[in-house]
């Protein structure tokens, strides 16, 4: 990785997308999932990416998370040109800058919450004692300080998502990238989780990018980006009734 931007200040550009295309081959057919998407997300933003199914939201999310690279166009995360990085550099970039929260929680089964949360720290090369301490701290932050040694199967859906959030913030990333984080939860628990995201955004200054169907979640963001057929059709504050 060439460029380096350690602590970014609020309002500085964190992610810059310029003319992003993403094409796949589905059998013999070429699918154009993203067709020339450009926008910028600055540090500390609270943003929802919305749109109907098949609009390219998921592709967008994997690209933003550096799990995938664009077919064309430029994506810079914290100053790094993502398509120029090797597999190992991408792994390091994800580890350092991004925390993922998934709809299905994706905790590792038969593994205690504290070990689940500590997982990213292991790949960051943090020592074992320190890992446990910081994982416990993150669990404390999401209100699960009393559930350190539980395995995921003994937790409720809301608790599992909190563990996943703890895992996402344990490395103190710049970006929380969430894929339908309340999709598997009932509305009351979903609202609590949304509230937790807002707190983290406010208190830690972490940039919050949420890919969602949920209009109530989109409404609470300060900015909505709407995708239809792989193109940005709206970029601005949430609109009532959308």
């Amino acid at each position: 990785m060439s460029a380096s931007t350690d602590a970014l200040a609020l309002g500085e550009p964190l992610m810059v997308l310029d003319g992003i295309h993403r094409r796949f081959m589905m059998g013999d057919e070429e699918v154009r999932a993203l067709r020339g998407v450009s926008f910028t997300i600055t540090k500390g933003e609270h943003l929802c990416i919305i749109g109907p199914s098949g609009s390219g939201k998921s592709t967008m999310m994997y690209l933003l998370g550096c799990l995938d690279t664009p077919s064309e166009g430029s994506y810079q995360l914290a100053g790094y040109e993502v398509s120029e990085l090797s597999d190992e550099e991408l792994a390091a970039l994800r580890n350092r800058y991004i925390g993922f929260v998934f709809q299905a929680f994706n905790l590792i089964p038969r593994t205690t919450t504290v070990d689940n949360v500590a997982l990213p720290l292991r790949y960051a090369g943090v020592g074992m004692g320190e890992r446990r301490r910081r994982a416990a701290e993150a669990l404390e932050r999401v209100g699960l300080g009393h559930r350190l040694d539980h395995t995921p199967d003994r937790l409720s859906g809301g608790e599992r998502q909190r563990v996943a959030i703890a895992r996402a913030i344990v490395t103190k990333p710049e970006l929380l990238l969430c894929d339908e984080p309340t999709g598997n939860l009932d509305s009351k628990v979903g609202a609590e989780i949304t509230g937790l995201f807002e707190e983290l955004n406010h208190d830690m200054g972490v940039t919050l990018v949420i890919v969602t169907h949920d209009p109530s979640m989109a409404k609470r963001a300060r900015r909505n980006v709407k995708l239809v057929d792989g193109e940005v059709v709206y970029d601005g504050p949430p609109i009532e009734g959308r």
Partner: protein
Amino acid sequence: MFEHILSAFLALKANKIRAALTMLGVVIGVLAVTLLVGVGDGARIYLDEQISGLGTNLMTIVPGRRETRGFGPPAGNVARPLVLDDIRALERQASLLRGISPMVMGGGAVRFKGRTRDTMILGVGPAFSDLRNMPVDRGSFVRDEDVESRRRVCVLGRTIVKELFGDENPLGQTVRLADGRFRVVGLMEERGTSLGFDLNDLVFIPVTAAMDLFNQDHLTQIITAARSKEDAPAAAEEVEQILARRRNGERTFTIQSQDDLLKTFGALTAAMTLMLLAIASISLVVGGIGIMNIMLVSVRERTREIGVRRAVGATKSDILWQFLLESVVISSLGGAIGLGMGASIVLALKRFAPSVPVALSPWIAAVAFGSSFVVGVLSGVVPARRAAELDPVDALRYE
């Protein structure tokens, strides 16, 4: 690396029953290797000891020409038997020999005060005791003058003494041997069995007396020994020349050296051990296939986990090592358990059934454990590579 090994253990702990069952194949494989090779090695050591116990640098000369070495069927019709003059010639002319003893072998009954025992009667010279490492306990062995005067004296083995005399002192007593009366002049020291042959169940008499007793003028064999290990080949050559000269250059006899015997049996037991090892390796291969199978299932089952790990910062090589070490840990652990079980059985056999020849040499332990490690690597490579090459996006989407 330590991190990876630790997480491999954690993964096994998370799925104990599956890990144990997967391990079982390797446990059985290594157990089989340890035991079967232990038996093969035990047989080799046993034969080595037995053959070395016969004496040092021994040579046996038997009548008749044999093309093969080692033990064979006794030669039938012999044109030129071995005779006492051969012994005298060797005594006069050979310079590399430690001692020479004729031997006439026969069977017969020994009787004393109404008690009888069928036994083997050996007609020998004085050098026999020393050559064959069979010392006298009390009295004396067959002496030169006994041989010269065809004296009817005998030296008894321990079993004979026990059977015929009980607590009585046999020295000076007279026993009936076949048709003759022999005075007991010596008692042999206690000896074990050699290759299934009871060395205590023997009666020694002067070779000349044996020739009289069995009414024959030729020898069953001649026993001699080289002065040292270095001299052994030259000594054999010397014996061959001396005996051939007495037969107009015809080699109507065969010299078997102890070394030949060791080599023959060594090759035999090595082949046996190798065969046993090959059989045992099959179970190890089966164990390895079992591990590979389970690892492939495990990689598929944990596809999402792999996706998550990649998302939070694991590189391809992190994933590769994770699964490879999981396989190696399963296999090595299985190997260690199998080795432990095998070693316990071998040691228990040695302790409680010392007659069963088994051995646990360090090389078996090293081979057994090493092969379980190799099996772990081999059966882990394919699944681990598959896991590492998974696309993170596909892995996260996997249902």
